């Protein structure tokens, strides 16, 4: 997780987001979920700006990967992870919790997203 947050920001439209600065570029990271929300099941999914995010805790770390299976687009995080892997509901494609690597077809990993946690709130970098 990056430590390059420059400021928190709630815009006039009441969108909860933070702005990070990396390599001289500023990026807006929208709010994804609270730690409270996540701790209920240790795993949740949420759509945000055309991205379907699978947010989870694995070996004590908060992680986020794409929830859209590379096979046919199924929900990777429908089942709670078991044995360090996610199994897509539709056709049982499997993904490694540590990295989003696809265990069924190694050429088709899931994207891992950068997260920023501030005041028990989780923000996601979608770019």
């Amino acid at each position, binding site marked *: 997780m990056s430590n390059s947050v420059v400021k928190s920001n709630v815009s006039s439209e009441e969108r909860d987001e933070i702005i990070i600065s990396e390599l001289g570029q500023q990026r807006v990271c929208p709010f994804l979920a609270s730690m409270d929300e996540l701790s209920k099941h240790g795993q949740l*999914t949420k759509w945000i700006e*055309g991205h*379907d995010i699978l947010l989870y805790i694995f070996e004590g770390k908060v992680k986020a990967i*794409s929830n859209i299976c590379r*096979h046919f*687009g199924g929900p990777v995080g429908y089942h*709670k992870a078991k044995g360090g892997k996610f199994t897509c509901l539709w056709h*049982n494609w499997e993904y490694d919790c540590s990295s989003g690597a696809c265990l069924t077809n190694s050429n088709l990993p899931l*994207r891992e997203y950068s997260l920023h946690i501030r005041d028990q709130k989780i923000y996601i970098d979608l770019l």
Partner: protein
Amino acid sequence: MTMKTVNLSVTCQAEMDCPKEIVMWNYYDHEHLVGTHYKLYDHARVLAQRDDWALVYRGKKMPFLPFWSGGMALQYMEGNVMKTFHQDQLGFLLEMEVEFEDLPDDRCRITATYNIITHPIFKVFEPVFKALFRKWFWATWEEDAPMRLRRWKVHKLGFKDFSGIDYINECLPEPRDKRVPAFEFRPPISCLKAIKSVDGERRRFAHSTEVGYNDD
């Protein structure tokens, strides 16, 4: 001398908020039986398949019945109608026809008719047959509906089988052109080799903690 028979028949109809091709894809996808329907099917094997037909073995548990049973099904497309002849271990031949119709605004209507032509003695069980297959239709419908709606949703985002949505997977800029191409149903559906092997594909879960969909 021909034997007298009776036709036990029941028709179920429902509508979906997606094009009919998505539902055809779903009905023709044999692998999802032990995935999406892991509570209803424990085993599936494609014994033979060509473009518009497939011979499939399925192990399933029907509503009300306290046991799992296997059966062979020949499934094929005839235009907008999918026909299935399903012989189960009890010896009944189930003939199923599913008709797919377009409705305005990317919606569709599905009409499924189940028929068993059998000895007149079974006429007394017709109410049970109707209840069983209505229950079956709605049980599978409820599990398939979110799959179809999500399939349509990700298609509209630019997802293609094994590719697409590069703004997610390749971190590329989101495309400005958001025109949605028609969803094309082109059987056979690509699938893992396991379902075509001697062992077929087994369900991975007998029980699961379901976090669920969040596609609304």
